[in-house]
């Protein structure tokens, strides 16, 4: 089991599109993925769970992966954060 902390860095936070990108990415892997924010824990492959987190810009998220490809999941997730979730500017 490995974990890593990230800070939401795109303009509007994990709204529908970035959240879906996240879930699509984690769903490609066999490992289980959990997201923990202030003690609240959700399934990292559930978009509804992600939306319910309401993670706005600057939110700190701990991501825990557990399984055969746990390292790959985390590096794929890290890549999403590096790319700011490819978020184009949508509204102010």
């Amino acid at each position, binding site marked *: 089991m490995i974990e890593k902390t*990230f*800070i*939401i*860095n*795109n*303009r*509007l*936070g994990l*709204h*529908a*599109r970035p*959240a*879906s990108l996240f*879930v*699509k990415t984690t769903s490609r892997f066999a490992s289980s993925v959990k997201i923990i924010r202030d003690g609240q824990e959700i*399934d990292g*492959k*559930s*978009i*509804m*769970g992600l*939306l*319910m987190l*309401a993670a*706005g*810009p*600057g939110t700190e998220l701990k991501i825990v992966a557990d399984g055969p490809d746990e390292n790959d999941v985390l590096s794929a997730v890290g890549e999403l*954060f590096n790319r*700011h979730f490819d978020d*184009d*500017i*949508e*509204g102010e």
Partner: protein
Amino acid sequence: MITLTGVAASDGIAIGQAFVLEDEDVAIPRWEVPKERVKSEVARFRYALGRTKDEMVAIHNKALKVFGKSHAKLMDAYLLILNDPFISKDVVKIIETTHVNAEFALTQIIDRTIKVMENFEDEYFRDRKYDILDVGHKVLRHLMGHEKKTLQSILEPSIIIAHNLTPTDTMNLKEGLTIGFATNIGGKTSHAALMAQSMTIPAVVGMRDVTSRVRTGDPIIVDGHDGLVIIRPDAATLERYKADQHRRGEAERRLEDLRDLPAQTTDGHRITLAANIETSDDVKMALSHGAEGIGLFRTEFLFLNRRSSPNEEEQYQSYRQAVRASFPYPVIIRTLDLGGDKLPMLGVSDVSPESNPFLGLRGIRLCLKYPEIFKMQLRAILRASTEGKIKVMYPMVSGLDELRAANAILQEVKSGLRGQQVPFDESMEVGMMVEVPSAALMVDILAREVDFFSIGTNDLIQYTLAVDRVNENVASLYQPLHLAVLRLIDQTVKAGHNIGNKWVGVCGEMASEADLVPILVGLDIDELSVAPSAVPRVKEVIRSTSYAECARLTREVMNASSVEAAQRILRLFSTSRIAQQPRPAVS
């Protein structure tokens, strides 16, 4: 005639006939599923999921064709909601353990999610509940064999009246046939509202029961400015709105015509009208609105919401892009203006929280305390300066020592670059923001060390009057027309002009307020930098007044016996100016 109020979601006036979409809210039946039927109930649910998925894939493909990738991505999110463990697993679990029908089980899960989301403080996230509701409704429709009358049946230009317009619905809106809409639910940032804004059609949302008050074919007015829907308007109201609509059309055309004209008063006094931007992508939009360059490039956005500060190369690329896009006009880059609370994002740990951040470590103070961050930014700016015309300015300077310290670092960075034979613009202008009263009072001395000044009115007013305008207890004391504020601006301009003829601009909100612009002109401000969207309006104000009038107005306002009297004088001036020239309706 009935007038209903809601939330203004997209500006404009639509006049036409109503097309009422069938109400989404259907009563959810509940029945007990006998043990032996549980399996087939789950199968019924899975079948409905499959049908919903087919429907969404079809919409997705259509969206891709018609609206492009970003809207299709939204349907992607819908498909993910449909496949979500909450729905694919938990609904089935409820059916299996509590022996209820699929409609009821699904509604329970949706309701539970919505309840959590309704409590969000962030409006944007709160409004995302509509996405989940939309998916839920689709599945319910397939479960219950209930098909919605689609927007496809609209044949003539109509105003759509609906309980809610979902992304699916808005994608089905026919260009040209939808001239406006009103919905029962939704907030300012719900999908429907954002869509209306991007389609620039008037819309009012959150009207609660508009669907039950309007019938298809009713003549109707949607006032997206005041958030009103007027059903079966009487002749006088209709006339008034028609005139308003006409005026808006005219005003828009007139503002467009202004784009390539100079910001010059009727008696030939020329003002530089520039725009404030947050990312290099905004430059194009600013220039297309008629801005003559960028008067304030806030670089904070580059630094925010990320784990580590952008490196020199990334900053260089951003500044370079901005200066190239703005060419031949200049770009004024303001160095990092962050508060101490953002230090962790810059990779500085062990910062103690401040009890009064507005009087704490922010702006140039922070940069001087952590010079490495500052040097990196200056290097990136200098390197980009060969690509066009860059000017740099420091925020939050409160006195001479800070200014000298900042300039010393700039010199150090410059000689470093010279040593490495990296080219940069040796004559790059250096300026400072005037937003702390102590700086405004010392401009005659500071002017010897800079090339220009830019007044940040928001902070200058806040610090001068000791008023936090977000604090509703004192917000009314935030007065741009306070004599102390006007005197500080006046003094800054005079001192700047007198000592070495340094130019003085205003980049705060005051410059964007049409009513206040004549005063800034009268105070001899050389440059106004405003939000890109405000450029045409400000230009119109400048072009419709004379410098002599502005100067007289400013004298009168500064001699007024009270702020209230000053406001009265200004109001009188604005109304007489408006009377001379037809302008868009303002309320």
